[in-house]
């Protein structure tokens, strides 16, 4: 990869990206179609885990960063004052 | 009533007042030697007190003689003798210390010595 030029690099990255999206789609489909034995009403919903993963990740980041910005994060010499 | 109380407790009162005088002198006097004197007064009060309680009305000195019936109690005398020896040792040692202090600091005033 080190010897490839820029346009080739971009092409490979795009190719990989497409492959990744395809995999995601496949997983979502699998989650709909394989037989499941849920513990609760909600985790048996189709694509529950996929959606949970995406939303959970985004919400965690946003909520924590907000919390951090307005409250928890302090400059590094906070305790030395 | 009061007189009677004083009469009965005379030795106690004297010794207590001497004790207080000694303590007072040790606290109030700034001169180190006077403090030692205060200490001596204090211990003397204790000795006096012990001797006074050994006394018995009409008692003879505690030497065994055939015709005497009542002796004063000899034990407190022994105690006091010991006490005096101890007090002497203490006083002499304290005085030596005082000399040393005077040589080192040039004063015997406890306020001036300050870190005393």
């Amino acid at each position: 990869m080190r010897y490839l030029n820029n346009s080739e690099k971009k092409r490979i990255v795009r190719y990989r990206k497409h492959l990744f999206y395809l995999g995601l789609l496949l997983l979502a489909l699998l989650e709909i179609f394989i037989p499941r034995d849920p513990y609760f009403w909600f985790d048996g919903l189709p694509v529950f885990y996929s959606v949970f993963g995406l939303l959970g990740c985004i919400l965690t980041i946003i909520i924590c960063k907000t919390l951090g910005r307005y409250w928890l994060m302090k400059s590094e010499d906070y305790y030395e004052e | 009533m009061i007189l009677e109380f004083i009469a009965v407790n005379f030795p106690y009162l004297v010794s207590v007042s001497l004790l207080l005088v000694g303590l007072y002198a040790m606290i109030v006097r700034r001169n180190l030697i006077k403090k030692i004197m205060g200490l001596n007064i204090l211990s003397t009060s204790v000795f006096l007190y012990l001797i006074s309680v050994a006394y018995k009305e009409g008692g003879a000195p505690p030497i065994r003689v055939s015709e005497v019936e009542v002796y004063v109690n000899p034990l407190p005398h022994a105690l006091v003798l010991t006490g005096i020896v101890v007090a002497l040792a203490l006083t002499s040692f304290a005085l030596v210390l005082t000399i040393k202090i005077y040589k080192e600091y040039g004063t015997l005033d406890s306020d001036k010595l300050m870190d005393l």
Partner: protein
Amino acid sequence: MIEHIFPVHPAAIFILGALVIPLLKGRLKQIYLVTLPVVAFVNLLYLPHSVFWVHHIGGFELIFGRVDSMSLPFGYIFIIMAFLGALYAIHLKGSGEHVAAFILVGASLGAVFAGDYISLYLFLAMMTFSSAPLIFYRRRKSATGAGFRYIMFHLFGGSLLLAGIVLHYTFTGHTHFGPLESGGLYFYLVMIGFLVKAAVPPFHAWLSDAYPEGTATGSVFLSAFTTKVGVYVLIRAFAGADILIWLGAIMAVYGVVYAVIENDGRRLLAYHIISQVGYMVAGVGMGTQMAINGAIAHAFCHILYKALLFMGPGAVLYVTGKEKLTELGGLYKTMPITLILFMVGGLSISAVPLFNGFVSKSMIVAAAGLQGEAAVYILLVLASVGTFLHTCLKLPYYTFFARDAGIEAQEPPRNMLMSMGITAFLCLFIGIYPAILYNILPYPVDFVPYTIEKVVEKIALLSFTFLGFWLLKDKIAGQPTISLDTDWFYRKAGTAFMWFCRNPALAFAGWVDMTFARLAGGFLWFCRNPASALATGVDSMFAFVVRIFVGRQRHSPLRALKSVVGWMDRLSLAAEEAAKRRAQREKMAALAQGEVDVRGIDSALFLVALMLALFLLYLAVKYLW
């Protein structure tokens, strides 16, 4: 004869073995360091299930060896960990860290096999004191502070525990370490003592405070033992205590939240310890056989992958001297093997199938599902999303990829790589062949981790998390900050306490001094010239009375004022005198450098008189009543 010598107490092997380390040098020392855990492991294999080494001391029964299926898994993993950690640290020349680490291992083993509260307390305290040097050896100011807070906080927890133990003994008449009956003050005291060890919020801040400050090799040891011993003692005493389910679930998410905003790589990992221990604590709280199994299995796996995870940044720290995410980047070119081995740990902690985290974590989550704890279930799944996001994606991304920070680096020493390799192998081995782990658990396991359903669900969850990360990856870059946590309270309290000792306490001591000096001084002033003192006193009294009764008359207020002024004059003179004396005292004190007591003998004598008087008064009052 052999059976009289073997088996030896595992703790004794390590603690006594640690004392030999300073005597050895060079290659011999290295061989010794890795052989001792092997010997201990063989010895452990020969331990039969029963109760050994019972000593009666001063009316108490001390049980040093309670070997059963609950304590053995912890024993195995601790010794394995000792081997891995020793191998990882083998290149260190000095002896101090090795000794501390081995005593830590020994004390942890002692705590695990302890059958009564006194010996348990003994080993827990020993753990505190042996782990602190691993922090102190970093030899920098922040590490020293963190080490101190670590010791003080654990001593605080230990004090509560000791109070709990003493109460427990007073109420029940024994010190046997077993399940505690709910209720009673000692229940809560002991629980808090254990929660401190397990780093359960709000008693967790010591962990994220201290572990990242440890030495590169020390943190590997630190990460493995204290919290897991905490989990073990919770299992012993509080299995099925409802409050733990919620504490555990909250703890699992809590760690993740802090990991998001953390910039220090090893502190991020420390928060993930809290998060992972949350799973175990929740498992303990559920208390079913499956949940307990899960908690123990997870502790077992956690020690392995967390050690691996700490070894990665530890190696980076060792090679580059940096640990902040904002200062790192682009290391994949120079440290590829480290990266790969670190990723094994990352995938394990994220519970990717085929890695060991999967076979243990899913057991706890399944137990939550089976018990119908919906909210707990959601929280635990959410925590695993966050774990994947940070440990497996953010941390390696910003350490090894992202922008190239242009740091000179090479692979770490061979022994570090070897240790990481073995750990990674164990992670994979257990992930692929979980039966070996399930066989040593205390209860029979009828849980099958590898079903199509579970695998697909897990992969879907994590893949979509990856998608989310990719979309927002620039948002979660490290920022050069630190995070407020509950350590704020005791850090501030500690500063306040030291301030208190330096200022008000000293001032109070000085005040006590001065008050007595002043009392004595006033007394002296009165005594030296009683007549004039009395005159002044009577004068002012008289003036006071006059002012009240005949205040209207012309000359009296003036007179009263005059006498009052005179009195105040006296007072102010005395105050001046006191100030002068005080200044003189301070000068003397500075000269004598604290060697000479600056209090006057007068005040000391006065104290004696005062005590005598007080005591006589006390007797009189008591007697008259």
